[in-house]
């Protein structure tokens, strides 16, 4: 009993275990600090989410047919490196407009190098549109039921009355 109580024989935990505990605490603390700080670091490059670079649609042709049923003849070509699942055509009826407002989605995909040609009545874009001054297209990729809108569209000033 006297031997057991002898302080000279008492041992603390080994040096190795001490190091392991210290390193463990350090790693846990750094993980905590990292999870806290990760919200403040890193900036987005402003690119559209889930859209690869190299998507490109151009308006190859756009002109109007001004008869009783006014309509827009439009040809959209995929000259990019990816096929697009669809695109939106936006038009504006105001002079000097720099962007489209009324939109129509033909729901057509365009494969690489292919084109979409259609005659669209003005009423497809909304009621009360009697003239067109601006046309643009914006491609999108479909992911399930979601549309991921992409850069790489084209715009065109037009004179329809």
């Amino acid at each position, binding site marked *: 009993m006297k031997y057991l109580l002898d*302080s000279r024989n008492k041992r*603390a*935990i080994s040096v190795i275990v*001490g190091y392991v505990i210290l390193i463990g*605490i350090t790693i846990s*603390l750094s993980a905590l600090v990292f999870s806290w700080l*990760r*919200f*403040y670091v*890193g*900036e*987005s*490059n*402003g*690119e*559209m*989410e*889930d859209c690869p670079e190299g998507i490109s649609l151009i308006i190859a042709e756009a002109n109007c047919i001004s008869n009783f049923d006014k309509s827009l003849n439009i040809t959209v070509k995929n000259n990019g490196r990816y096929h697009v699942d669809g695109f*939106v055509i*936006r038009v504006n009826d*105001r002079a000097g*407009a*720099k*962007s*489209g*407002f*009324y*939109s129509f989605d033909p729901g057509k995909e365009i494969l690489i190098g292919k084109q979409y040609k259609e005659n669209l009545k003005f009423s497809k874009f909304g009621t009360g549109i009697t003239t067109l001054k601006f046309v643009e297209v*914006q491609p*999108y990729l479909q992911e399930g039921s*979601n*549309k*991921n*809108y992409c*850069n790489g569209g084209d715009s065109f000033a037009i004179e329809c009355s």
Partner: protein
Amino acid sequence: MVLNSKKRGISPIVASVLLIMLVLILAGIVFTWARGFIGEQIEKKDQPISKLCDEIDFSIDLILKNADTGTYDLEIVNRGNHPIFNFLIEKHMNGDSTVEEYKFSVGPGENLRREINLFMNGELSEKVIIYPSLLGKVVGEDSNRPYACMKNGKEKTL
């Protein structure tokens, strides 16, 4: 009154534990104090919401309706993939400015037209800056909060 030379101090383990506890308590105090300077964290899609601001893509147009009353039609098209929760409109006039919140939402790919008044102090504003806001989740709380993207505004001179 003889001093016992065999008296021992605390063991190295207890000393280490005390030191570590002291460091942790101090770190906790500094953390709580510093949080006040940094503000709350708002996230969306598991990302800090400020990162998503750079992905917002929208266009605006202002069409004059009535110059006497300063009434304009604001046309907004959301060309991006994030729903815009509402807008802050900053009006500028003679070096002065005011900010008003307009509660209308525009989903991805959607457009919207709203009548707004751009008078400020009885005169038409010289210019306006329109900032979009996203709705995000406050980290650590069960609540949502709008976050104004103050670096992603669109400016229009009237």
